[in-house]
């Protein structure tokens, strides 16, 4: 479904991704692990077509995704419907006056009639446990509620792939539990999940495969989640486990 070959990307001369080779199949649930600044978020942006690689190729269902292709509105819109992105900062994603309008934004653009839009909004709100939030203003919600609304907005588009950038950051334990369980259910329902995180305690639950980034912005390992979590030396090398902090 997704194939990255020798991808490199740099921000104003500073390397952010180095020779990335990655294949993701339909229905997989993978996590991108890595210390701060290792390139996880950059890779997620690249997967969503926000940035284009300096070197290498990105293929989506056999078709190469290039900056030129993404400049074609019809192609870009279809591509963005298929791959949904939940930003790390939910505030950047919410801009409508009410929660209802926020979730209805995508389905309305897809040309659905209002009863269909209403059905999607209500389903998404129920799925996220936010029934009764329709008329609330997104900006005045709590951090956890905003994150849930941001996810609901993306789910309303019914994408094949759900890309989440640090979705559990700054959330209370109950919300974290709720969201990780939701991610598992979405994967059960056939959605491909690509999640970046450095919360190791959740990784086993929300993924079957882990891709580990090292601090030089390349991939250090791409294996079964349990294998990666069992390799403490590798986790130490990649700055995901600290000898003092994680001491038994």
């Amino acid at each position, binding site marked *: 479904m997704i194939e990255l070959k020798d991808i490199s990307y740099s921000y*104003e001369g500073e390397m952010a991704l180095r020779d990335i080779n990655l294949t993701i199949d339909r*229905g*997989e*649930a993978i996590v991108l692990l890595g210390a701060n600044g290792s390139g996880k978020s950059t890779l997620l942006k690249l997967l*969503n077509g*926000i940035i284009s690689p300096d070197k290498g190729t990105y293929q989506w269902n056999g078709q190469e995704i290039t900056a030129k292709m993404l400049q074609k*509105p*019809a192609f870009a*819109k*279809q591509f*963005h*419907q*298929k791959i*949904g*992105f939940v*930003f790390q*900062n939910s*505030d*950047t*994603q*919410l*801009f*409508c*006056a009410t929660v209802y309008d926020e979730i209805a*934004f*995508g389905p*309305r*653009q*897809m*040309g659905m009639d209002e009863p269909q839009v209403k*059905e*999607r909004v209500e*389903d*998404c709100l129920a*799925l996220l446990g936010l029934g009764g939030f329709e008329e609330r203003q997104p*900006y005045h919600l709590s951090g956890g509620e905003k994150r849930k609304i941001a996810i609901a*907005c*993306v*789910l309303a*588009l*019914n*994408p*094949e792939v759900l890309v989440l950038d640090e979705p559990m950051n700054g959330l209370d334990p109950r919300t974290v539990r709720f969201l990780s*369980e939701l991610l*598992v*259910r*979405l*994967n*059960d*329902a*056939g959605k491909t999940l690509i999640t970046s995180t450095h919360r190791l305690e959740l990784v086993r*639950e*929300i*993924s*079957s*495969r882990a891709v580990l980034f090292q601090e030089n912005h390349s991939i250090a390992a791409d294996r079964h989640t349990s294998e990666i979590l069992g390799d403490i030396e590798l986790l130490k090398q990649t700055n995901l486990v600290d000898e003092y902090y994680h001491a038994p």
Partner: protein
Amino acid sequence: MTLRSEQHGKSMPRWMLADEDYVPATDKDSFVNRSILGLMEVLSLVRSQSSRAADRFSASAPVKVLGTLLLVVLTAMTRSEIFLITVITYLLLQLSVMRAGEISSVLKLSFGAAAFTAILLLPAVFLIEGYSPVRICAKLFATVMAVNLLSRTTRWDHIAGALKYVRIPDLFIFVLDSTIKYILLLGEFSLEQLQALKLRSVGKNRSKYTALSGVAGTLFLRSVEMAEEMHSAMECRGFTGEYRVIQTVRFGTADILHLTIHIGLLVFFIFLSRG
């Protein structure tokens, strides 16, 4: 391999289990794309400014700020074409050692400002006999170029700090410093907002401007929130309204050369004014 949920049996909406058979309708969203590109350019400029390791003309920021101020004042006051030509020649010489992209960008801005002034002065040319807008346009050309040269060869935080030497109140410098910082922070925030809007615009948006005004509204709320947080943080750190700028100034050969040229221009200005 998919994961198995403890709540596996829990129902998911039917539409979510099926693939979306969707062909987007045609729509124009060049405004969002242009805004994203514009913002990226501004952010890249601010970032390259703040990451500049050393000033290329190597004179210290206070000397350059004082020199530029002197040039701007003298250019505004002069009635002599010879002085104007001398100043422009000096500035063009400085410009000639910069990178090609920077030269073209400074020249574009300077000529643009001069051309705009020429258009504004056009009625005077027809209404007042013998009036020539050339001098004012040349003055503007020189002033814009001098300020641009300063901004492109000196880090903005250094410029703000150097204002201390021209007796600008500390609080003003603090506001200037904060403004530069928040241009970057809020710029990055609004860039992400526009990118999110673009990613969610998967079809025909009949109310583009409503979405954009929502983006602007969120940005405003965010800036208020950040200002309030900063106010509280400053109070917690014991800020009482007094902001001290401490800058160690080295004084080298380049500073002496810079000062000599500017003093020379001042002497030349006085000489021409008396003549």
